[in-house]
């Protein structure tokens, strides 16, 4: 599954970069985040309750950062286990650019979902992932004291 | 957590009392606790229809119904319905048309067909096909099952009986 998108956040680049690296900001931004710990400068562990429709699956996940260029971009590899519900694995690249009105955050993600969630949820995995990403950015922007600004073209919509 | 609930229900005409875990499905309760092997377990998601049983006069998926939900209800399986009426006619017709091979889907098919005949006695072949699309069969290819059901509909419309298949001794 691929998920690519762009969000315009009405906050300056250094604030956005700082926020993306701040455990407390991430804790409040990730929908369903129950626990989050920084194990090392490049490794974050988190427990997230994934809620969509009737599904309530607790995922224990690991995030590994690499190719970090401060105030600009980074790559991350992630994996999460949802116990009997299934698992997710993938990688993502995030880039920040100066834009009119704030910071443009572009992300590309490749993920595979396995186990029950993949089989059954497969129907709407992309739509669910997009919704989670949108929710994340709305909360993240709010944490920074700004907001997400609607973009002209709906990038990542299909 | 092994909290158990006391339940009481009528199964194939007999009063049954039990104490079971809330998560126990009706079909597992019937098969494992009451040894009624008529309904089968297929997908446990409600798609295949093998677990179909009757509760309070209507067909339901035994895998999408908890035994605790059947407290105070009337439950019927193919074993209890087999003596007469629509189900008996269907069984004769199934035999005539060779509509059963391994038998795994048959209990569900019979119960689903019986409800169709009761609710839509004028059903067309197309309607029969749509109605039983909730019951999967891996053996017969379905046509013989549809033929068998259509025969019962036709016979009933004409007020006729389905001729019993003569069995060799």
């Amino acid at each position, binding site marked *: 599954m691929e998920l690519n998108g762009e969000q315009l956040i009405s906050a300056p680049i250094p604030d956005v970069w700082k926020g993306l690296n701040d455990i407390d900001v991430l804790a409040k931004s990730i929908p369903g985040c129950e626990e989050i710990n920084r194990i090392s400068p490049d490794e974050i562990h988190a427990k997230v309750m994934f809620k969509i429709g009737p599904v309530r699956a607790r995922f224990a996940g690991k995030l590994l950062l690499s190719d970090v260029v401060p105030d600009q971009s980074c790559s991350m590899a992630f994996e999460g286990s949802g116990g009997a519900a299934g698992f997710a694995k993938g990688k993502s690249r995030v880039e920040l650019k100066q834009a009119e009105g704030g910071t443009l955050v572009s992300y590309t993600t490749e993920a595979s979902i396995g186990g029950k969630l993949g089989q059954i949820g497969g129907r709407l995995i992309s739509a669910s992932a997009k919704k989670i990403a949108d929710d994340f950015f709305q909360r993240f922007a709010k944490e920074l004291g700004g907001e997400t600004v609607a973009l002209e073209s709906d990038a990542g919509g299909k | *957590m092994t909290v158990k609930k006391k339940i009481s229900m009528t199964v194939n005409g007999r009063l049954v009392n039990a104490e079971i875990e809330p*998560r126990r499905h009706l079909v597992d309760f019937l098969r494992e606790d009451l040894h009624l092997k008529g309904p089968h377990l297929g997908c446990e998601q409600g798609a295949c229809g093998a677990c179909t049983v009757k509760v309070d006069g*209507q*067909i339901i998926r035994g895998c999408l119904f*908890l035994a605790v939900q059947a407290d105070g209800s009337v439950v019927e399986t193919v074993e209890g319905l087999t003596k007469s009426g629509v189900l008996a006619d269907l069984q004769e017709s199934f035999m005539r048309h060779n509509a059963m091979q391994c038998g795994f889907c048959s209990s569900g098919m019979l119960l689903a067909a019986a409800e*169709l005949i009761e609710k839509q006695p004028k059903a067309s072949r197309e309607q029969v096909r749509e*109605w039983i699309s909730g*019951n999967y069969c891996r053996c017969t290819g379905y046509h013989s099952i549809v033929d068998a059901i259509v025969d019962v509909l036709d016979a009933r419309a004409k007020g006729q009986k389905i001729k019993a298949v003569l069995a060799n001794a």
Partner: protein
Amino acid sequence: MKSAAFDYVKPKALQEALSLLEQGGDDVQLIAGGQTLLATLNMRLSEPTVLIDITDIAELKGISVVGNSLRIGALVTHTEIEDSELVAKHAPLLKAAAPHIAHRAIRNLGTWGGSLAYGDPAAEWPACSLTLRATMIIHGPAGERRISAKDFFIDLYTTSLEPDEILVATEIPLADKHEVFYFHELARRHGDYAVAGLAALAQKQGDVLTNCAFTFFSVGATPMMATKAQDLVNGQTLSAELIAKAVAEARNEIDAIADITNSAEAKQHLIGVLLERGLKHMVA
């Protein structure tokens, strides 16, 4: 697969159910028909510690005419809607749609309220409730509130319902004698999730349709109304030319999203096919 263990309670009163829901938070789930929930629990995609069975609660039951509306309780099953004379008379779109929902055994237990509360984009009832301009009646710790269907469905599996609220019933304006409707669902097999579907309603006077409502389902994250196509058709003589224009507009205004079996382009195409069939049917 078998679900994880849980406790089971069956309150008789709405207030009791609301308290249990509020206290339980993320660890409890409501069960009505259970046709979606139990499948979910069977696969351990959720492991609540308590199920709150709401099927004994009187306020959630029954179909009745209240003033100028048809009131349908949240616990009414799909089969009850299919068989109801009141529905046949006052909201015939629902009677036409009901047989498309899964299969009979599921319809005998699954509920009107359950389908609306989950808001599955492929479900029939959310689309029908939009087209029929339903009002949702919701109860929570703060009492009763009402919200129209068009504001109720917000995003994928996301409705206006808060975690501590219960959908109690809906009210639908009674059908008037000029009303025509069209319901169709395209699916590979009968009972499958729709590839694309249309629930349409209008008032007809000769060749002219007014008050049009065209809601498509299984094409987006929520049911989607083709409002621009509606505006085009309202009050105009429905010629072949107008139908073609409406079809093009519907395909243009709705941003279909792909699902696991069908591309966005396929759904876009089918939106037009359904609308064309629907308009021709309604004006005939």
